[in-house]
């Protein structure tokens, strides 16, 4: 196996994981867990940005998806409610 194949393998794994996480997020009723899953998805997305050779986006996306967006969402949940009711 050629060594260049490895990044492509990672690309496919990251995308499939991201989709699986998306499914979990939509299913999840506990919003805190949903946000944590979103954070995990963000990490996979950042990895994808790196693998697709976009260093600018990589260093943009890390603070946005791991730092700011989850904090905003946690602040929102803290002030409102953390469960999803029907």
């Amino acid at each position: 196996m050629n060594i260049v194949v490895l990044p492509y393998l990672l690309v496919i794994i990251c995308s499939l994981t991201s989709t699986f996480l998306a499914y979990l997020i939509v299913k999840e009723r506990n919003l805190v867990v949903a946000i944590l899953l979103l954070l995990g998805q963000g990490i996979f997305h950042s990895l994808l940005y790196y693998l697709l050779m976009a260093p600018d986006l990589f260093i943009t996306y890390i603070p946005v998806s791991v730092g700011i967006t989850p904090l905003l969402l946690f602040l929102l949940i803290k002030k409102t409610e953390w469960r999803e009711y029907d």
Partner: protein
Amino acid sequence: MIKRDVLVAFSLSLLVLSISLIIWLEGYIRIATPIISSLGESYLYYSYNPWYSNYTSFSLNVVSAIIWDYRGFDTFLETTVLMASIIAIYTLLRGFEEKVFLQPKGLSTITKTATKIVIPLIIAYALAIATHGQLTPGGGFQGGATLAVISSLIIAVYSLEFLYYMGYRSKRLVVIRGLCLIGLIIVAITPLLIGFILNTKSYIFQNMSKEDSFISMPSFLFDAPLAGSIFFYNVFELLIVFTGLTTALMLLSLRDVELKKAFEVREVYE
């Protein structure tokens, strides 16, 4: 309810099927080929190219060159969108009071000490990627977002009170933000003004000299490529994004006591 869910799911799966068929079977959309668009190749070729001085922007980072030079107007409008968002949040929560004398809480001492150690590192990193945006990956927005992580760390670890102690007020931040946006506009309009004075043709957002206009921003500082106005834009953008995101974080983490007055105020309605 359930009937509607099934309907939505069904139509969306149809959408997925059709687009997937197009991509998978026919290969209509160009994916992972050796060819990229000629426009992209032009950017790669001209971005730092002393041999074609009419098309270059003297930036080693091609993405920075596109963002602030080739498509600078987009980024200006994008910065304005951020401004509009801050004004809109401010409008939504108008009438709040920032109360400084509440007791600060926060997490344990260990976490606080760790944060204290991390913060200077983040500041150094953010400044580096913002000011070297024309040389290495990074730029104003990247640096600003990284700096804003500090504010979010402080809010999460020390509580909002600590930001007040450090002298942050949302109004001050909004003022800094507005002034920086005006600074950006001034830098963008400067070539036009110089063109007026020298009575030659010149363009808004012009960076290097063009075929029909010789006005040019400084492209080198001693030995390091400055990429003309890209450097200034990056510095302004750093401040704009940092203050903007911090304002939003502060406004959205206001305590109930502070927001109480905002929701009591009733204006004369139609």
